[in-house]
């Protein structure tokens, strides 16, 4: 023990790390919320991957695939939805950058801009369901198909609603530093929703067997 330490030990004092100078928020993997959202994304991604596996597994049970061909109208509605998702991605990313810069104007502007295609996507998903030539109870392929799209739709509902709640906080409540982190992690989650939407679209619609039989 050094002389200084001995002095402290006998004088009722002890060394300490004073962390009061540290920032009170951080973004990305430094932030515990980011880890929470990352875990949530892992859970949901695992669910999607298992459903993809189930879809491929069930596919082997049909001599003719898809058992009921998909209509062009449903395909176009789904494709339009993906374009809207793609459009929302850079906009939500800009809201994340605005949060990092603590720019109130930027957060409001880009959250509104991202919310518009997000809600439009939900409308497109509704239209896609309407245009599908089969219901969930037609056969096993239809069941998995609907399950996948409904599950992704529910993620999108959650993400788009979170945009609205965050915007309400930004407009109507005193904005605390933690809300910057909320806007940032909201963006991370929406980007994940976009990625899952694209992967699911590719599996369900861009399969050559499905494309060949579009009518």
């Amino acid at each position: 023990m050094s002389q200084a330490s001995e002095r402290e030990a006998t004088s009722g004092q002890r060394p300490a790390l004073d962390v009061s100078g540290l920032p009170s928020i951080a973004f990305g993997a430094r932030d515990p919320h980011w880890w929470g959202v990352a875990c949530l994304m892992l859970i949901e991604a695992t669910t999607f991957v298992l459903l993809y596996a189930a879809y491929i597994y069930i596919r082997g049970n049909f001599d003719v695939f898809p058992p009921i061909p998909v209509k062009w109208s449903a395909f176009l509605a789904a494709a339009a939805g993906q374009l809207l998702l793609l459009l929302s991605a850079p906009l939500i990313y800009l809201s994340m950058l605005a949060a990092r810069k603590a720019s109130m104007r930027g957060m409001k502007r880009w959250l509104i801009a991202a919310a518009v295609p997000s809600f439009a996507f939900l409308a497109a998903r509704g239209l896609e369901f309407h245009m599908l030539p089969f219901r969930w109870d037609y056969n096993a392929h239809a069941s998995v198909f609907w399950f996948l799209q409904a599950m992704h739709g529910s993620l999108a509902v959650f993400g788009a609603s979170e945009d609205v709640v965050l915007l309400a906080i930004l407009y109507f409540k005193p904005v605390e530093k933690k809300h910057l982190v909320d806007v940032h992690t909201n963006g991370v989650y929406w980007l994940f929703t976009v990625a899952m939407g694209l992967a699911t679209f590719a599996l369900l619609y861009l399969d050559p067997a499905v494309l060949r039989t579009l009518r």
Partner: protein
Amino acid sequence: VTPVESAVRVTTVADSPTELERRQLEETWGERPGFWGWITSVDHKSIGKRFLVTAFVFFVLGGAEAFALRLQLAKPENTLVGPDLYNQLFTMHGTTMMFLFAVPVMEGMGLYLVPLMVGTRNVAFPRLAAYSYWVYMIGGLLLYTGFVLNVGPDAGWFSYVPLSGPQFSPGKRVDVWSQMISFTEIASLGGAVNLVATIFKHRAPGMSLDRMPLFVWAMLVAAFMIIFAMPAVFLTSFALASDRLVSTHFFNVAEGGDPILYQHLFWFFGHPEVYIIFLPATGMVSTITAVFSRREAFGYLALVLSLVATGFIGFGLWVHHMFTTNLPQLGQSFFTAASLMIVIPNGVQMFCWLATLWSGRLWFKPPLLFVLGFIAIFVLGGLSGVTLASVPIDLQAHDTYYVVAHFHYVLIGGAVFPLLGAIHFWFPKVTGKRMNDRLGVASFVVTFIGFNLTFFPMHLLGLRGMPRRVYTYLEERGLAELNLTATAGAAVLALGLLCYFVNLIWGLRRGPPAGEDPWGADSLEWATASPPPSYNFNYLPTVRGRSGLWTRAVNQPVVVGCKLDMHEVLVTNTLDAEPDHRTNLPGPSLSPLLVALATGVTFIVTVFTPWGIVIGGLLAGLGLALWMWPHGKPTELVVWEEK
């Protein structure tokens, strides 16, 4: 020097905080009094204790069901329990023990201990922890309400299709099961996410990943296993419910569905589930062997790598539960090899514990006795598991009592014995009092004898062809003596557990004061009062070695500078636990209970109508908005850069 490092100032403080500072901490972190305080609490210790108490209530209920099964099987052609009730009882027993006891009890231990062990004041997401508990409790209540109303599930704890499908299980029994699964799955996932974030971001400065207590490592790996395994059972139960409720065809062969898909999805969860239960127990074993051998655990690195390896390999063996289905031979060989391979990391752990015991100065207290009991029983269970990994043996033994014997050796030996030891070990920390050591030894001896008397004969019963899940057997089968022995063993086992519970109550009411560290243990939870104050530590601690207290310097620094009038804690970086920033955790709130109730409405109404999803979804959405909405005094307002 990074900007973050330069923001941390080295200073000196008084050895302990002033009375005023303590009062401020208590005011900030303490729970509100009365019923309101109880339902709004987000303190990890209260929630952890609730998980533990509730899980043990379910353990007693599940045990009572098992005892009823044993009484029915005590003699041939017994008529004590009819076939319908028998089906409900074994389903309830398995479901209770797996979903309402084993996983929640381990999460309860984690939620209580991990923040203390890593040296912080609460879990990363306190409201999520409260929500997890409420959802778990509602799920348990749903299952037992169903059972009392004669709507108890009766298709086995795994509810295989087509038996559990709409054609062969009309009524609501299976629906109750599938919705209960959803509740417990959400609760487990909430707990797992909380533990991952707490472990990665709230460790005391100095506690780099390679210095983390082994129990924390075990909880971390188990939490990741929950994250990857639970989605499979969510899918399974959801698809089963929708096949029954809205006529989907996931498992209907006539419309392209596949019952084997159900088995794949279920066991993709079901096998890792064994390790989700077992790994936290190995963390307890590592902790107890080290403390009662008076030395650090032998082979820390090997133990950690074994945990991680088990976590990975545990996902590659699910098909060995399905050897009697029509599998390709290559698949059978692969899953046999994988099933044998998992013996390697578990064997490494076993040898590390033996080396710790061999080279230590043993202190034969009840926690160590339970661990020694674990070693004996788990090795036997592991060996019978190796035999079942072999396809030809599995084909013969499948669905016989040999399998029942095997998994009780693994699960009770592998998880319940360490858990009983762990509760005896940590009881002084949680309550501030000690259990009786003599009664502890007696309960161990009786439990150990009772366990082996109950389950060892089941190996022989299985080898003689006694099938599982059949409510009686004929005299001529020659199974009566062994069954009677097993039933007598169950009575002895119950007596041993009764001794244990008497000891718990004795400890609570009359136990002598424990002091901070009655066992001379090494991890950080022993550096604070017993029971810990609401804020856990007077000062947030730092560590400089794997055994936080055994390697503590006389003048080990503490952390100061987090605001005392807010729920502010230190966030450290993931790998090295260097101070990174401060964060303000949320305080008590009713939101977790409200959202849990909305979740309850969703799943319970869905048993009767698919509109439950819409109604409950809207309620849950409103609840979540309320959860996110800022309440009370704002903490740190943003200073906007633009006009």
